[in-house]
């Protein structure tokens, strides 16, 4: 039984253009799928469609079935807001690309993080504060007390993304969607955050839908990859298959690009 079952998903803009066409994939419990493609290929829209959070004017058709423990199987496309609100957080939650805009600039970090914890675990007062500190420690934030009291602009980009990850994990979802969570970070921080994300997802037995444009990053954290181009899936398979024997020209150029960087680094290391 799969956790997320997307069949024939189509996302149409207000102008009647198809932004995502006939997309199908499934994610089982604990599985990790990478969604890779260039910007504008419909990666992020797919993630939003899975949550029923498409921008106003856009419409989804096809079928998106979420079947998380505790919520039962439910169809997302066309579901009423009330039903969706029960699914969001419990079944799925998201880590966004830009950690600065993903946090409310006028709310202290601790309070933002407390919100999902309060809702999910029904904690209050001292217990809630302790849970916030524990959540911050879990994402390896060195001074949880100071960070909890800070506003988002007062902490570093890497710390902000760690906080965003902590917020998404605090919902204890069955499926975590990571929408280019490391693109806005510099390379060393990127590697740390990826390792952290991978470790936490494994530790909690969550499924992961990882969205990215960098094959090296996506292949490092997922088992299977789906390659999107102009809103259509052009290729899918295990990371090994895609890297060793890419069939579609776009996938080949992705692999070649990653290899090129790799060999360039080898050359400079020599």
């Amino acid at each position: 039984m799969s956790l997320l079952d997307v069949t024939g998903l189509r996302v149409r803009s207000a102008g009647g253009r198809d932004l995502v066409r006939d997309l199908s994939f499934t994610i089982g419990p604990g599985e990790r799928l990478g969604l890779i493609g260039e910007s504008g290929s419909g990666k992020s829209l797919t993630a939003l469609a899975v949550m029923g959070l498409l921008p106003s004017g856009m419409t989804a058709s096809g079928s998106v079935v979420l079947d998380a423990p505790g919520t039962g199987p439910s169809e997302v496309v066309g579901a009423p807001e009330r039903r969706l609100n029960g699914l969001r957080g419990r079944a799925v939650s998201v880590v966004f690309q830009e950690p600065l805009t993903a946090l409310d600039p006028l709310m202290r970090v601790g309070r933002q993080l407390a919100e999902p914890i309060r809702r999910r675990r029904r904690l209050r007062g001292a217990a809630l504060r302790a849970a916030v500190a524990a959540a911050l420690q879990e994402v390896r934030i060195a001074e949880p007390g100071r960070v909890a009291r800070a506003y988002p602009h007062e902490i570093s980009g890497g710390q902000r993304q760690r906080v965003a990850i902590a917020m998404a994990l605090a919902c204890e979802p069955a499926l975590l969607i990571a929408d280019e969570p490391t693109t806005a970070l510099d390379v060393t921080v990127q590697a740390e955050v990826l390792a952290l994300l991978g470790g936490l997802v494994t530790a909690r037995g969550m499924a992961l839908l990882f969205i990215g444009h960098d094959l090296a990053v996506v292949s490092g954290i997922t088992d299977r990859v789906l390659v999107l181009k102009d809103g259509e899936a052009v290729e899918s398979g295990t990371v090994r298959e895609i890297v060793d024997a890419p069939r579609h020209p776009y996938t080949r150029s992705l692999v070649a690009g990653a290899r090129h960087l790799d060999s360039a680094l080898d050359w400079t290391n020599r």
Partner: protein
Amino acid sequence: MRPAMRVAASSPKAPVPEAPAADAPARSRWSATLVAGCVLAGLVVAVAALSLLWLPYAPDDTSGDRLMPPGAEHLLGTDKLGRDLLTQLMIGARIALTVGAGSVLLGGVLGLLAGLAAGFATRWLDDTVSALLDILIAFPTLLLAMLIVAVRSASLGSAILAIGLGMSAIVARLTRVLVKRVLAQDFVTASRTSGTSWPRVVTEHVLPNIWPTLLVNLALQLGLAVLAEASLSYLGLGPPPPNASWGRMLQEAQATVLTAPVGAVAPGVLLVVLVIGVNLIADGLRDVADPTRRRTR
């Protein structure tokens, strides 16, 4: 094949840069502009408060000589009907503040509600509200005031109603844009992905984020409302006598401005003091209300 990992591995592990700040001593929440504004506006508020307790003469007391210069008997002199100028000035302060506060309250509440509705609305409802607001804003406040006075007769309430209605359109348009901008932010989507309901999104994220800008705008609107009340009174559309208003004092002193300048200068000076004070408060509030500006200055 993991090039990205390799990059990380090949470079020395740099510690994540830590931003200082949260434990730095919090800067004083009072800026110099705010203090200056409060002093100036406070002066007028004090005069208005005093007028409730004590007045040198009754507002309709015409026992003094006409157009007396400032002296011991009448501190600021008298007007052309022999009424004490200080008395009128003090009542005028009360009227200016009442109309200012009343219209900001009316315009603020109406504008915020309409703006929130328009901000959340999509398609036809948003278009309708926006078109209505544009018409209201294009409609001159003075004309609106004349219409209201024609229907309800000139009074304190009519002035508040006219200025407040005109203001509500401006506040609503600002609120609509602010709400739309906040709703487009990732943190609203992020909050909704964790299952936060709409009412909670409004109270937790939308209102706190639009509040600083809205508050500054309302303070500016208060200054404009005071000026608008003076204009209405100058034209005879304000509260009728014996409620002295600065606008009407200016109008009455117009003919004798060269022989008895105090009658025109005194209300003019107080008007400027109040408006500058309120504008300085607005400026100071902007610095205080925004945490990113609070520490970087």
